């Protein structure tokens, strides 16, 4: 066994340096998304909903999967973004969609920063309950402010001007909405992917794995967590704004526990802390519930429930975890440091 000549050539060093390398298969989801556009022009309403959910799940993955912030209230930011874009457009203050997304990101990020400053002093169950409380408070605020938010009935018929002044949102055939959401998803994904492979992202993983050690090496743990939570909130806000714009509608469901719990299930189903878990989980969960409910309108939840039970029993790391286990079994060794 010969010692490596220099630190750069050590297999561990190469593995570490090559981790952020773009792999060939990473293009597959995007090709599939574009193929879906051409193959199923009548399913684009569902497709748009699916892409928004993927983005939302990615934002949760950043907080939960990478930084290990256990939250059950992520819909707070989804809703903050949705209401920002929705209310600005509904009250004719600002309706241009892309700048609307930025406004939504800023507001949701601010909510994330504000709540994060308080929440992230806690961990575990306390943190879980506090995230839930934040969401419940926002939901009730939206309910009480019915004059501005539309309350339980929501804000109907939000008028969104054509994208780039050219492409109109058609409510019956949502082609433009689909491509618009896909584009935004891509930009956000590239951002998140870069972030998690950066030293900042690595330190988040470190905090998740061993907070004490990160303190010991002198990493500013709380600041890192707050920054991560804020970024995650901003992306969730973008997802919410996309939902509001593509549906031309916003209501209390954007802030509800249903949405927060569903996205958590999706992420766990796909596999958290893996980036692509959001894609796999959202496609599996939403496609199953959509098509089962289409053919069995009264009994579809049974099928979905069975899938979740099977995943919980046999694939603790989600669907992507199954592939990893298989890879290990058949002996494809990943270079490990």
């Amino acid at each position, binding site marked *: 066994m010969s010692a490596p000549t220099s630190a750069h050539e050590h297999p561990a060093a190469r593995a570490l340096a090559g981790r952020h390398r773009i792999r060939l298969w990473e293009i597959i989801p995007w090709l599939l998304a574009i193929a879906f556009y051409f193959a199923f022009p009548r399913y684009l309403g569902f497709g748009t909903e699916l892409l928004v959910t993927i983005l939302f799940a990615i934002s949760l993955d950043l907080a939960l999967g990478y930084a290990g912030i256990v939250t059950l209230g992520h819909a707070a930011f989804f809703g903050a973004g949705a209401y920002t874009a929705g209310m600005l457009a509904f009250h004719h203050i600002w309706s241009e969609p892309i700048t609307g997304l930025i406004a939504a990101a800023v507001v949701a990020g601010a909510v994330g920063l504000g709540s994060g400053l308080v929440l992230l002093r806690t961990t575990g169950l306390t943190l879980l309950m506090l995230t839930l409380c934040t969401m419940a408070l926002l939901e009730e605020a939206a309910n009480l402010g*019915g004059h501005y938010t539309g309350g339980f009935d929501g804000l109907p*018929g939000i008028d969104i001007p054509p994208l780039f002044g050219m492409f109109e949102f058609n409510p019956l055939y949502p082609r433009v909405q689909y491509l618009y959401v896909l584009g935004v998803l891509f930009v956000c994904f590239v951002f998140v992917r870069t972030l998690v492979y950066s030293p900042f992202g690595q330190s988040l993983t470190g905090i998740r794995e061993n907070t004490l050690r990160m303190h010991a090496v002198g990493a500013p743990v709380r600041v890192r967590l707050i920054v991560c939570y804020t970024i995650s909130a901003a992306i969730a806000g973008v997802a919410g704004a996309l939902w509001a714009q593509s549906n031309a509608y916003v209501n209390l469901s954007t802030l509800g526990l249903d949405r927060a719990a569903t996205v958590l299930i999706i992420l766990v189903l796909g596999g958290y802390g893996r980036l692509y878990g959001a894609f796999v989980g959202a496609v599996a969960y939403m496609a199953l519930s959509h098509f089962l409910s289409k053919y069995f309108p009264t009994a579809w939840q049974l099928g979905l429930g069975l899938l979740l039970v099977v995943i919980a029993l046999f694939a603790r790391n989600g669907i992507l975890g199954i592939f990893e286990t298989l890879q290990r079994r058949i002996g494809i060794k990943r270079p490990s440091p």
Partner: protein
Amino acid sequence: MIKRILAASAAVAMSACFAQAQEVKIGLVAPFTGIGAEFGQQADRGIEQYLKLNADKIKPYTIKLIKRDDKNPSGADSKVAVQELLTQENVEALIGWIYSPNAFASAPVVTAGKKLAIITNAGTAHITLTSPYWVRTSFSMWHSGFPLGEAAAKILKAKTAVVGYSDFPPGKDELAAFKRSFEANGGKVIDEIPMGGPAQVPDFTPFFQRAKDAKPDVFFVFIPAGDHSAAVVKTYGALGMKEAGIKLIGPGDITQDTKLQAMGDAAIGLITMHHYNADLDNPENKRLVAAWHKDYGANSTPDFMAVGAYDGMAAIVHAIQATKGKLDGDAALASLKGWKDVSPRGPIMIDPETRDIVMNEYLSEVVKGADGKLHQKLLATIPNVKDPCKELKVGPCAGSN
């Protein structure tokens, strides 16, 4: 002879062909799972009963119902379901919408789809203004709240009232409607108590105690149809409000037929205003209730959600006949403006201006029948009520398409 047989069989074949071409596809959007599953089932059965009991009115057409679950009041699922019914299944008309938020969310798709869309439950008053293709065969919250305000002052001779309501738009609508007409008729609302959201049944004791302390003549309660009603009458009984001389009144949502028996004897004396209850004495209703008991069991009963869907299907069948099976959106709409029918709830009409229903409202009292079950006794009929919210142009109802 052979020629004749050939000709006859050709005619049969042709008519068979013809009959097949006369199939009309209708999309039903309602919650079939989750907390609203029960309501979706009522709507579905209401439609099923209409098609069964009125088979002769539908000829020579056949109706194919395509059901889609809109799951929850989030709007998005309903909207996608409507999109797919219109673009994939090519339905000729839509029916359903139990939750108001889903009707609001679907409105732009309905407008773009240019097909008749019948609302069979969603009750926020101004929904019908969000698309020119909406026709509503259910009710607006103002239909019951407004006449009840007048009845409370004139028939029940109440001077003061306390209003307790579930804190979401239908509750606020009921409050506004009741208050407006009660005070116009000389009464006074002395306290307004929001009683939590629609999703969970709260502990009503603190709210009811506050109402009791205010000593009103009547206590008007609005809670959503579903499981709240049993808790309302039990709290009312437990706090001794009846003995204190406070009458419990409300819209018929609190005496939904499917929940009435579970409310127990505490409900006796409860006075409500609504457009339908299963005890209404008219031949149409007797026929519906009898068929319902036969098909779904003696303990099952139609309620106002079933009748909303029953009449919704009646409206679609009328539009099919009037447009000779084509159901072109605008022609179908035109045929329904001013349409009159005899429904299990009594005579109904679609108001040509608002596309909302015009119907009788019934003031009823809960009584115990000879069979030991609870029934609703008719006290008074208020004929031909138009949605007062749009008549009086209140708030968002003042808008136009």
